[in-house]
């Protein structure tokens, strides 16, 4: 399954990832090669099935619905690139306003 440069651009937009035009040809070629390689799972008949596999405990363990304090060494204000009055600061939401 090959992908085109335009498809890679579209997927990059979905993944919120800038891809520069210089690397696009190599990236497209490598993605095509990876997708061709993984597509070989299609060779196994879809009728061949097994019980769905889920790793980990057989059942979800429910916990009491209560707030459990988890003390952190420091708060989000020290982690975030920009933080003020309890909020993370980001540039304007221009793109979303236009799309909305």
């Amino acid at each position, binding site marked *: 399954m090959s*992908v085109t440069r335009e*498809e*890679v651009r579209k*997927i*990059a937009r*979905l*993944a*919120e*990832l*800038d*891809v*520069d035009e210089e*690397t696009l040809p190599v*990236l497209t070629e*490598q*993605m095509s*090669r*990876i*997708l061709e*390689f*993984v*597509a*070989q*799972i*299609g060779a*196994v008949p*879809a009728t*061949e*099935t*097994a*019980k*769905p*596999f*889920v*790793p*980990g*405990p057989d059942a*979800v*363990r429910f*916990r009491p619905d209560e707030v459990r304090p*988890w003390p*952190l*060494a*420091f*708060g*989000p204000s*020290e*982690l*975030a*690139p*920009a933080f003020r009055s309890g909020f*993370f600061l*980001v*540039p*304007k*939401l*221009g*793109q*979303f306003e236009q799309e909305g």
Partner: protein
Amino acid sequence: MSDPGEALASAKAAADRIVRAKRLNASLTPSKELRQSLTRQAQAAHPSGVLYGMPVAVKDNICTLEFTTTCGSKILEGYRSPYEATAVAKLKAAGALIAGKTNCDEFGMGSSTEHSAYGRALHPFDKTRVPGGSSGGSAALVAAGAVPAGLGSETGGSVRQPASFCGIVGIKPTYGRVSRSGLVAFGSSLDQIGVFGRSVHDAARVLSVISGRDPRDSTCEARDSLRLPTVPESLQGFVIGVPKEYFPPDLAPAVRRACDRAIRLLKELGAAVREVSLPHTQYAVPAYYIIAPAEASSNLARYDGARYGPRFDGAVDVGALYRTTRGEGFGPEVRRRVLVGTYVLSSGYYDAYYRRAQQMRALIAQDFRNVFDRGVDLLFTPTTPTPAFKAGEKLDDPVAMYLSDIFVVTANLAGLPAMSLPIGRVKGLPIGGQLIGQAFLEDEMIEAAYALERVVPAAEDT
């Protein structure tokens, strides 16, 4: 060891050894910071702990309070976690000393530790080769004798493959044996913290300490810590399966010879060895490279320059901020996998790729169940098709790199415990043999490894 003076001496000696091993680019912690922290930790360590004074190097995708956690990525450069991983907390409670953070492929994505934003790590015996990956830094430090044990993590063989390349022991426990709290997520249904040791005993006792229930990880089974088995006199009563699919015609001849010798030794130890079949093995790597990138594309969505990590500024709006930060912050392999993951989950391709891969995962897990249901206790295979490869050899061909994981990804897909131990050498390069056990029966796997380790001439060329 129970004397604080000995712990302090152990800390200083470990710091000296790690600094001397600097040429390997295996440790990401600056020397001065490492020395100061190890001294402080030795002074505060619990003398009654079973690992008192033992230095343990920790892969840089496992959160620590003492050191930064960058995951080998520019997007987390300088990041300090506000909490530590449960495995790290358990190590410290047992008196161990966290001996700095180790180099790795970015977010665990790679098989050579060449995909690190902080430069490639070197093989401890041959600087032109790779130490394996993604936990190559921990493996190289243990193999170089800088630390007796290290933590790594596995999503698809990232402990066993470098253990095999570096000639040490690497154990990946059953999914759910060790808490994932504080392990930076890559592929959540596959990720497990694993251990490296210079001997089976060193690795097993560290695993025993970090295992067990944790209310902070709902996928961690509510079980007690792993109990260490004793070293057995023989392997009488063990049935060991040898899956034919793991011995393809193109297997490196030296690897085949080392495995044949190990199988002969297992028989001499009293084990019954029989050939078995795991018919869907050839589809494991393709299934893995759909499921793991799909999960990664979701897990790595959080790195956007808003809540933590560096921000690559200059964006006119928030969407541009996300795209620029992620485009600049992720390296080429992570970008590739995020894109592949997004593609296989996208409308029109989900059924052809992701759903089929999940079906394949179920078939691979069923293959193992079928073999174990027929009375086989353990499986023995080569860990890797070849010894450590040359640096740069597979960098331009992602699929060739992925295929070096062919014998290790199956245990991650099926959630089973597996380990690699040295079974020989070729031209001085180590060769690893793999044992795969049944879920939560690590004790049986370790018992067999103890027995094999005692008799196999691991340092001899085959």
